[in-house]
């Protein structure tokens, strides 16, 4: 399941860009691969991130998986619900399972895929 109007990475993160803010999460493909998510290590507020810096760690009984930042910016909000309900990522990865918001420093998205490109990419895996 891929959603329109989002940007995607090869590591299966998504970004929803609205104004100068980007909401970040992991894709349906990623949450399926991880299985039942039991723990999320969220970034700290105001943390400065470069593109591809580690933004969060998501853990299931199967694996601990780093989440990389699709964009550069400053962490402006984190999804507090994930500390007690990490399974929101399994249930609703593009909605209630968002991880954090970034105040983006560069609006450049040329390194990211759109929904159609990501779908093609998934087929190639």
């Amino acid at each position: 399941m891929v959603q329109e109007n989002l940007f995607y990475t090869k590591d299966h993160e998504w970004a929803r860009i609205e104004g100068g803010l980007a909401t970040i999460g992991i894709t349906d493909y990623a949450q399926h691969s991880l299985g039942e998510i039991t723990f999320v290590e969220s970034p700290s507020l105001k943390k400065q991130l470069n593109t591809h810096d580690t933004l969060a760690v998501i853990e299931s009984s199967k694996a601990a998986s780093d989440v990389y930042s699709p964009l550069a910016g400053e962490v402006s909000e984190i999804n507090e619900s994930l500390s007690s309900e990490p399974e929101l990522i399994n249930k609703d990865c593009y909605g209630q399972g968002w991880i954090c918001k970034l105040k983006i420093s560069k609006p450049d998205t040329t390194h990211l895929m759109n929904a159609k490109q990501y779908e093609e990419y998934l087929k190639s895996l």
Partner: protein
Amino acid sequence: MNDVKKTVLFEKHAALAQKSQIVPFAGWMMPLWYKTISEEHKAVRTTAGLFDCSHMAFLKIAGKGATDFLNNLLTNDVSTLKPGKARYGYLLDHSANIIDDVIVYCIAGDNFMMVANASNEQKVKDWIAKNKTGLVEIADLKDAALLDARVDLALQGPASAQCLKNIFAVDVSVLKPLSFVYAKNNSLDVIISATGYTGAKISFEIFVHPSKAALLWDTILEVGKNLGIIPCGLGSRDSLRIEAGLPLYGHELDGDFNVSPFQAGYGWAVKLQKQNFIGKDAIAKKINPDTEVARLKFDGGKGIRPIRQFDGILNTEGICIGHVLSCAAAGDKQIVLALIKKEFNTPGKSVGVYYTARNAGHIQQGRKEKVNLGDKLTADIKGLAVERFEKF
């Protein structure tokens, strides 16, 4: 990837599991889970679960010299094994390194079936070929061209006996552990053995000709539907065996810490009073280890970071007394199998876990990637030592 093999049930897995959940394991494409690990785990504890074990190694060892040959190869005593009975033991090299842990089934006087781990299949075959004498015949029972070919499906959990009764009209609930019987109906001819790897008191493995494995799979799921029987993948196989305290080769046997059968709690399967077996002198020196495998229980579930292999086990003073070998979620608990100093392995004793670094960021923050016995650390989560094994 090209040499990753498909089991005779691959099409079944492809139909039932997501593509991304079917992964290479010990050279075979195997399902990690069909729905979720926790549902499949729960099914085995409450109803029953069906596992594809057809990737394992099934070897026929027969002929006049078979009993003597096996008795020299295995740590356990095969000379007293009667038809219809099976025995667990180890293949050791001359330095007492474990080649594999296996179960040997006595089919008839001079005819045995050895079931070994898929990951060790080649190693076991090579070792057998190297030590074989003239009076022994070896065959790979996965070879469907053989009339007596066999692969294995495991049906584990309380509802399994009823399911098998419905299919084969036999009462296997009376079978003693490590015993087996023949059963058949119009289309299937099987061996049902009271063995398994989940800790379920009522649990069976069903050995079937590879050409009939898919039919057996479908039949069990069809008949088992009303009994709540579901297919289970490797994920729950691992969480169930950890919860029960059963060792896995490479973790609680051999592996990074070179764990011996004595440390694993299986000294009974090493018969030092037997006249001879390969590795006997070397393993006799390992009889009194100062560390052993312990089963530990911690809180788990939502919002708690999962414990992982190589994390440190701490005593109440924060001193590292051992390492995690395996860990699994079981309900809202985490069950850990760890190699720890013997004096701390008492049920009820408090222990802690130090989480080793999960990524580069953790290392930058000063978290250790690796811990050593005697290190002074702070526990990230606290729990208790529990009984070494648990039956369900």
